[in-house]
Structures are given as structure tokens and as C-alpha cells.
């Protein structure tokens, strides 16, 4: 579904991605982990051409998104919903208007119809009281969820989540995890999730990829990921008290 082919990207003086190749399959929840500054957000940005690789290509399905422009790029982007790390809500619009913006811009729906869909999504995320509020009046975690509501309002087939649960309490985090998992199971949505939260990565990921020093150093299913012999992966796991023999709860099995 999404394929990186020998992608190299330099930002400033640093090579962030160094000849990276990997593929994300349709219908999977691919989790990207890695230390801060490793290039996780940069990778996501390549998938929707907010960044263009210096070398290599990024494919979305049959399309080369890394070199698309104009109407082509719009068409490819319309397949995506994106939750940004900073939520990226428009500050002068209310929560309702933020979430409804894509509908208002790209569909012929009337205000009532839009509001109905918006409220539906907000309820899904436990935000039904926020409709009239402005982003500045919400906590960081709530803004994140509004951003998520906006990302899924057009029912995209691919959703990119940049740290969907950072800054959320554990209970809400699990709600988000469940939502991501439900979208995959019920609608076959392909998800790419960047997270620091390994428990959540293990719970929702069909595969986990770890970025380190410009490379994808490990890609494995959760069961194999925690048994990985890669030193970087081991260090990352142990920092979160996960051992080779450790158990965790898979989403949907409890």
C-alpha cells in the first residue's frame, strides 16, 4: 500500500533517512517507533508529500506520491487522513468547524448534514461537549482527539497518526487504541502509527518498525519484535521494562 524505495532525506546538515526501503501492506496497522528526533514524523510526512525525498521514491498503491503534483497529488492525499503531532487545529475556528472543514470544502453537504456527521465523530471520541469550544480552550489531549476526529471525518482508507496517545491519560489512550484497531477490523483501514508507547504499539500493531540512525533497523510482528536480538531494539524495549519473556495484552483479546 505504501512503499519506501531507497529513500534518502537530508534536513539541514543531518541525514534523517538514509537509503530506507520498506513496505506497509493494505489493511495493516504499521507502528513506527524510535527515539525522539529519529525521523518518525519525517517518514510520515513523506507519505503525503509534505516532504520530498532527496533520492528514492515513495509509492502509495500504484502512484508515486513523492513526485506527484497538482490534481494527482490532491487525489492521492484525499485517500489519507492525518493526525499531526501538534493536532494542527485552526485556532480561530470552533471544534465543530475544524472537524467539519474537509466536508465543507470538498462536499456539497449542507450545514445540518455536516454538523450531524461531526457530532457523530466527536461522540466516538468522547468529545460531545466540545463542539462549540475553540481549540485554545481545550487541553492538549482533547485537541489531539479533535485532530483525530478531523482526520477520520472523510472516512479515508489510510490514516497516519503521529503520536495519537501522547499527553493522554491511560484510559483515554486505550480508547484511542481501540478506535484504531476497530477501524482496521471493521473498515479495513490501513494505519501508520508513530508512538513512544510500546504497550500501545504491541497492542494495536500488526507489525512494528523501528527507526534508528537513518535506518529502519527492525521490522517485525509484535511477538517477534519483543524477542528481537537487535541491540537498539533491546535497549528500547528494556527502557520500557519489556523483556523477551514479557506478556502483554493484545487489543481485542481481553
Amino acid at each position, binding site marked *: 500500500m505504501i512503499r519506501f524505495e531507497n529513500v534518502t532525506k537530508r534536513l539541514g546538515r543531518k541525514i534523517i533517512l538514509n537509503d530506507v526501503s520498506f513496505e506497509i501492506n493494505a489493511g495493516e496497522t504499521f507502528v513506527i517507533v524510535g527515539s525522539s528526533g529519529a525521523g518518525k514524523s519525517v517518514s510520515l510526512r513523506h507519505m503525503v508529500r*509534505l516532504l520530498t525525498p532527496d533520492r528514492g521514491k515513495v509509492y502509495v498503491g500504484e502512484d508515486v506520491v513523492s513526485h506527484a503534483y497538482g490534481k494527482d497529488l490532491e487525489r492521492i492525499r484525499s485517500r489519507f487522513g492525518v493526525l*499531526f503531532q501538534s493536532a494542527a*487545529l*485552526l485556532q480561530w475556528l470552533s471544534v465543530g468547524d475544524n472537524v467539519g472543514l474537509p466536508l465543507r*470544502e470538498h462536499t456539497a453537504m449542507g450545514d445540518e448534514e455536516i454538523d450531524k456527521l461531526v457530532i457523530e465523530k466527536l461522540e466516538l471520541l468522547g468529545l460531545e461537549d466540545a463542539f462549540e469550544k475553540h481549540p485554545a480552550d481545550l487541553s492538549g489531549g482533547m485537541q489531539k482527539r479533535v485532530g483525530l476526529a478531523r482526520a477520520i471525518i472523510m472516512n479515508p482508507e489510510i490514516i497516519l497518526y503521529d503520536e495519537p496517545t501522547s499527553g493522554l491519560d491511560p484510559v483515554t489512550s486505550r480508547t484511542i487504541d481501540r478506535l484504531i484497531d476497530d477501524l482496521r477490523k471493521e473498515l479495513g483501514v490501513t494505519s501508520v502509527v508513530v508512538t513512544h508507547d510500546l504497550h500501545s504499539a504491541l497492542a494495536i500493531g500488526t507489525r512494528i518498525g523501528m527507526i534508528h540512525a537513518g535506518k529502519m533497523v527492525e521490522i517485525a510482528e509484535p511477538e517477534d519484535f519483543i524477542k528481537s536480538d537487535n541491540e537498539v531494539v533491546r535497549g528500547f524495549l528494556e527502557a520500557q521494562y519489556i523483556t523477551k519473556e514479557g506478556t502483554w495484552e493484545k487489543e481485542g483479546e481481553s
Partner: protein
Amino acid sequence: MIGEAFAYIPLAFGKRTRHEVLFQMYTTGIKSLGVITIVALFIGMILALQTGLELRRFNQEVSIGTAVTVVMMREMGPFMTGLIIAASVGSAIAAQMGTMVVSEEIAALEIMSINPVRFLVTPRLIALIVMMPILTVYTNILGVVGGAVVGATQLGVAFNAYFDNAIRYADNKDLYVGLLKAMIFGVIITTVACHQGFGATEGAVGVGQATRRTVIISFLTILVVGYMVTRLFYS
């Protein structure tokens, strides 16, 4: 970018964009009205006092009406309005656009295939092109009134004589050239502010820099372009 912003102007008459344009015009006016009022009054008063003292040597005090009006309409009105709007509205636009870049809001718009130029720049461009001449007229009127007050209180020129003189010798051309300048300044301010704002990088520092540069670059451009327009029409 600014060409693109102009190209989207016809699209701006849709219901929702129209609302945004009106909102921008409203904030532009509100943000600057207080300062403009004070500056315009004092500029008029200073002009009247300076020219008045000179003219008095030739017993021509009554001509301050013309002097103040012509100078206000041709130069000081658009110029001062431009500077004030650059400092208040231009800097605010740059800060807002810069913040939107840094907090990924612009990226979010692009993902949603909402053109940031159409969505953000065009309404501000229209608002400034419309508001600059209006505010300039306001500046001119207050300047002339300020001059009249000084004329009456300091130089013994009666209100009637002052305004008579002002209306008799001031030319329509002065008004039109001044308003043309005001519009051009509006374009300059929007262009510089949006360009700097969209170019902002590296968090709050970048936004601060964009704001500062906007004010400085607008000031200088307004000065130079103002001179060139004057030369074009008066020589």
C-alpha cells in the same frame, strides 16, 4: 504567491469566504483605528504649525489649509496609514501565518487539499486593498481637522477660511494618487507579511523573526515605492 492570491480573488465572493474577508476588514480597522486617529491628528497639527510659522512671515497663514490638505492627501495620509498598518496588521499577519507553519496547521490544510493561499492570503489581500484607501481617507480627514485646530488656536486662521482655502486649491488628482498609493501599500504589506510568515521556521524564534522582518521590509518598501509613485505622477 501574490499572483496566485490575486488569481483567487474571483473565488472569494462565495458565501463563506466573503464572511472571512469581512472579518479581516473588520479586524484591520479595529486594530489600527486608535493609533491612526492620534497619529493623523498630530501629523496635521505639526504640518499646520510648521508651515504656518513660515507662511506667517509672508502674511500667508491662511494658505496652511492648502498646504496641510495637499501634503496629507498626496504623501502623509497614505504613508502614515501604511506604516501603521504594516506595524499593527502586517506584523499580526506574519505572526499568525508563522505560528500556523510551526504548529503544522499549514501542512494540515495542504493535506486536506485546501490551498493555503486561497484560504488565508486572498481574504487578507482583499481586506487590505479595500481598507487601506478607506483608512487613508480617514487619516486625511483627521489630519486636515488637526491642522484646522492648530490654525484656529495658534495662528489665528478661522475654520471657514482654512477649509475654503483647502477645498479651493486641493486637486482631485491628489486624492486619487494618494488612494492608489494606499492600495499599493496594502498589496505590499500583505505580500511581505504572508511571505515572511509562510517562511517561518524553528518555533517561536522563527515567528518573532518573521514579524520583525515584516515590519522592517514593509517600511522600506513603502518608502521607496511611495517615492516612485510620486515621481511617476508629479514630474
